[in-house]
């Protein structure tokens, strides 16, 4: 790019950073694109400069939403026995566990594979849509806090691996075929990995409250 190289520091950002893993206080230094600042005491990541602007990120989130809807609605695996074929979607899986006296598992699967990932994608999309112009979306504060707490409770990527293992196992008894749903999940897995590298706390520094600022 011939544009001036983006540096991830803005004058409004506070000058100090505290490592959340060891409580060490660091002076913030400007990061080049893609650079990661590490804690000198414990080695944890302090902050990273994402190479992506809010626009690009938003496009990614919308893609993830489309892929997620497909992953949820399309069958994941088809199974054949004696010429009969059945396909199962995510909801069949959850429904079946509920009927089979494993309600705990059904609830876990519904939460970690449907409710939480969907909430994460929608929240991110909402926040980023406003962050594109440096604004804070309505509900910015509680939503950012909620996103933080959602942390490790979205498990779509584990499900992809689980589907793979299931296919191999079921293959011992039946004809099994992967369905489009599982490819959608695979794509979702890649997108999620990209999000994981994004330092969301930066949104706090990069956006302004409209009613606090003097915006018309």
């Amino acid at each position, binding site marked *: 790019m011939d544009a001036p190289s983006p540096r991830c520091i803005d004058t409004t950002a506070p000058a*100090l*950073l*505290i*490592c*959340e*893993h*060891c*409580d*060490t*206080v660091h002076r913030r230094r400007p990061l080049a694109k893609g650079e990661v600042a590490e804690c000198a*005491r*414990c*080695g*944890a990541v302090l902050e990273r400069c994402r190479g992506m602007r809010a626009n690009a990120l938003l496009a990614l989130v919308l893609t993830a939403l489309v892929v997620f809807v497909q992953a949820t609605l399309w069958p*994941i*695996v088809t*199974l054949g*026995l004696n010429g009969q*074929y*059945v396909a*199962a979607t995510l909801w*069949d*899986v*959850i*429904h*079946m*566990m509920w009927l*089979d*006296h*494993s309600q*705990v*598992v*059904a609830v*876990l*699967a519904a939460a*970690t*594979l449907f409710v939480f990932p969907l909430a994460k994608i929608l929240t991110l999309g909402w926040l980023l849509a406003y962050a594109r112009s440096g604004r804070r979306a309505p509900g910015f*504060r*509680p939503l*950012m*806090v909620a996103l*933080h*707490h959602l942390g*490790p*409770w979205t*498990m779509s990527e*584990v*499900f992809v*691996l*689980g589907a793979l*293992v*299931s296919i*191999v*196992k*079921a293959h*011992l*008894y*039946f004809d*099994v075929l992967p369905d489009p749903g599982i490819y959608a999940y695979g794509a979702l897995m890649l997108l999620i990995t990209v999000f994981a590298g994004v330092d969301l706390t930066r949104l*706090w520094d990069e956006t302004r409250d409209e009613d606090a600022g003097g915006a018309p």
Partner: protein
Amino acid sequence: MSALPRADELGLIGCHVCGQVCRAADTDGGDAALACPRCGSTLHRRKPAAYTRTWALLIAAFLMYIPANVLPIMRTASLGDIDDNTIISGVVELWVKGSPGLAVIVFCASIMVPMLKFLSLGTLLVTSRSGSNWARRQRAQLYRLVELIGYWSMLDVFVVALLTALVRFGFFSLVEPLPGVVFFGLTVVLTMFASMCFDPRLIWDGKEDSDD
């Protein structure tokens, strides 16, 4: 004071949720009801009752882990042959009949990762409480590793769920989930809560050597 001052010594608190640096000077009376000015989350110098909570959750998780391994997690029936699978027999079956590569992955996710969590968190709790100086940086890395890979243990739960749904949906009750899988799911959730309740800042709270 060392070259790397800690927030605690400077009267500062870092917000865990949004990263805001807050001044804590006016609250040396205790942690009670101090909220982050930016995001509104409660601020803690250290996570409250980290040792008690982490121990309690870890022990509960371990108690669940025993039936999770002893009880079968899934029943498969084919041609009148009823076969109850435990986590370990599932790994062996994959290794023998399917693919050894996947067997290794399942073994890591279902057996290695939970064991690693019990051992690491136990070690971290004991060494941090005694203010030990030993391998601090490595212990910090260990904690981050536990946080990063912990949820992959859910793999076997999803496998059982998927297989059950697949097979039951059309045909006969050839595959059935058994109670072991519920215990295993609870183990994973409880260990995840345990590692969240631990405060890695405690690793660094004892006296520090000045040789480095």
